[in-house]
């Protein structure tokens, strides 16, 4: 898997439109998960949402991706309410990979990834060679070229996860929302995906918002971390500002040491188990 070969955007979109939550309340039926939340996603940054299970990360991401309509307040894309924009126009600006997509039956990997081109097509804009090129580049970027003609039902969990990521890449949107893109992946493929995310961010200027559970990887590959819990944003900032023992205790009820990762210099989270013998660190 060559994480460096990124699908070339038709025009390397600098300046993605801003994505912003303004006083939103997000709820399912009667239970509200967030109330009166403000959060602005900075353009051209990799922002990662972290937080405990059930804290509302997916809920927030879905709201940014217009899959969940706020019961109050508004989600805005480029200063305009998401709801007022035609969904196909939004799809050209913003791609979202939900946590639980449905795998279609009897569909090859290439077919699946081709569907990422849907927003760019219409009755009068049929499939073109450039669509095929984008699909091939997305397959290559996720290391799936060899598997392109396999049935999606025959893929391993990790291979399938990469196919979903390829689909989202094929959408070529300046904003990409990814809900747990590294689930099912082995550590090496997790790194590949995150390096891919970073290269899309750097080379295409794409804005990325994702949900990750591995705090160390989140800290290493993000410009900004947003910690959610207790129905609000608990902490927000650069990895070293956010990944402190206090925040981890509050957000995850976790005792942990935070040390500098010797290879990258980013925060390395070491969970502490009270049953283990404490070993004096360093000195």
């Amino acid at each position, binding site marked *: 898997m060559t994480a460096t070969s990124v699908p070339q955007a038709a025009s390397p979109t600098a300046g993605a439109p801003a994505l912003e939550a303004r006083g939103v309340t997000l709820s399912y039926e009667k239970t509200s998960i967030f109330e009166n939340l403000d959060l602005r996603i900075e353009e051209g940054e990799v922002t990662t949402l972290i937080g405990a299970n059930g804290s509302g990360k997916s809920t927030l991401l*879905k709201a940014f*991706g*217009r*899959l969940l309509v706020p019961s109050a307040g508004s989600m805005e894309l480029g200063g305009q309410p998401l709801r007022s924009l035609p*969904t*196909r*126009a*939004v*799809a*050209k600006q*913003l*791609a*979202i*990979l*939900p946590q*639980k*997509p*449905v795998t*279609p*039956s*009897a*569909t*090859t990997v290439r*077919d*699946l990834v*081709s*569907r*990422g081109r*849907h*927003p760019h*097509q219409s*009755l009068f804009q*049929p*499939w*073109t*060679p450039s*669509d*095929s*090129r984008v699909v*091939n580049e997305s397959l290559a970027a996720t290391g799936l070229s060899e598997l392109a*003609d*396999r*049935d999606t*039902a*025959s893929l391993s969990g990790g291979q399938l996860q990469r196919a979903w990521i390829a689909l989202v890449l094929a*959408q070529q949107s300046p904003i990409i929302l990814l809900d747990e893109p590294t689930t099912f992946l082995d550590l090496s493929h997790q790194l590949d995906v995150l390096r891919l995310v970073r290269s899309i961010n750097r080379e295409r200027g794409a804005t990325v918002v994702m949900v990750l559970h591995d705090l160390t990887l989140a800290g290493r590959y993000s410009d900004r971390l947003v910690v959610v819990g207790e129905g609000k944003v608990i902490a927000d900032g650069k990895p070293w500002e956010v990944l402190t023992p206090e925040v981890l205790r509050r957000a995850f009820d976790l005792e942990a040491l935070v040390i500098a990762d010797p290879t990258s210099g980013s925060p390395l989270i070491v969970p502490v188990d009270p049953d283990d013998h404490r070993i004096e660190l360093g000195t």
Partner: protein
Amino acid sequence: MSARTSVEKQAEPIEGSRFFGRLWRGRVVVVTALCVVVVLALSVLGILAGSSSLSFSDVVVTLLGGGTSGQELIVFDLRLPRVVGGVAVGAALGLAGALTQTFARNPLATPDILGVTSGAALGAVAAIVLAGGSYSVAAGLLSLGLPAVAAIGALLTAAVVYGLAWRGGVDSYRLILIGIGATAALGGITSYLIARAQITEAAAAAQWLVGSLSGISWASVWPVLVVLLVVTPIAVLQSSSLDISQLGDDLSTGLGVAVQRHRVVVIMCAVLLTAAAVSASGPIEFVAFVAPQIARRMARTGRPPLLASALMGAVIVVGGDALVRGVLPGEVPVGIITAIIGAPYLIWLLTRRKERESYA
């Protein structure tokens, strides 16, 4: 996947007919064309088959306008409406089945589960049974004609089911459960009406419920043809959205499909097609279920191909009816034949589903 796919891939790795490749895989075109040929052949057979024997040349001469008045009556007023009606009803059911199976992402989701068929059945049976009594309402309804009453029952039921399933949008799963509930409830009422009916009316109702082309006339064929001509293009325009919708509501929205609007269009198409077909011929069992699945297996696509499913429906109904008239003794309703073929197919599909999950 088949060897064919990989060969094709080597032949045109990227460029060429990828657009065709997506919407119109070569195999779909072949299957569709094949179905057209078979439908035409069976239609000719259907015009030839029947109790009063007309030779092939008699039929051709009559169709060209040179037959005797007796031959004209048989060909134009008896056999042609029956064959054209069979094609139209079969196509409507096949297309409706393809639409419901696709939007529900479930091969067992036939238009019946939307409550349409049971609504039509209740309407028709009520009209037949109650008109025998002195209920002026029923007599009034029946004066509209049995097909119209059945259509009203179908559309009303579909509207109620859709309304009950609505919660700021319609979820396929919820819609199916409510449709199944409605089908059971209406089926109960229909059975009750038959149970307390006079024997002749009960027999007439039971006969209608089997589904048959024997009573069909141009008057009931036209509405099906019109619905088919209007609805088919609308349904075909939903093709790419149907493809995307296989990825679930969330990803579909993400890819720019207006999910709820798309779903309403698809359901309306399925309801209109089913209502039209059932009103004309009574419920012909299993066509809407089997036709799309056969078409899909032949075309090897991820979801039932729309036009091929419609044509396959036509093949089954016209073929079944030709069989009934030409081969079997007595007038066996075509609905019996399709049920006899369809039920074992359903069982076979269910037993096979585990091994070949991806094609089920």
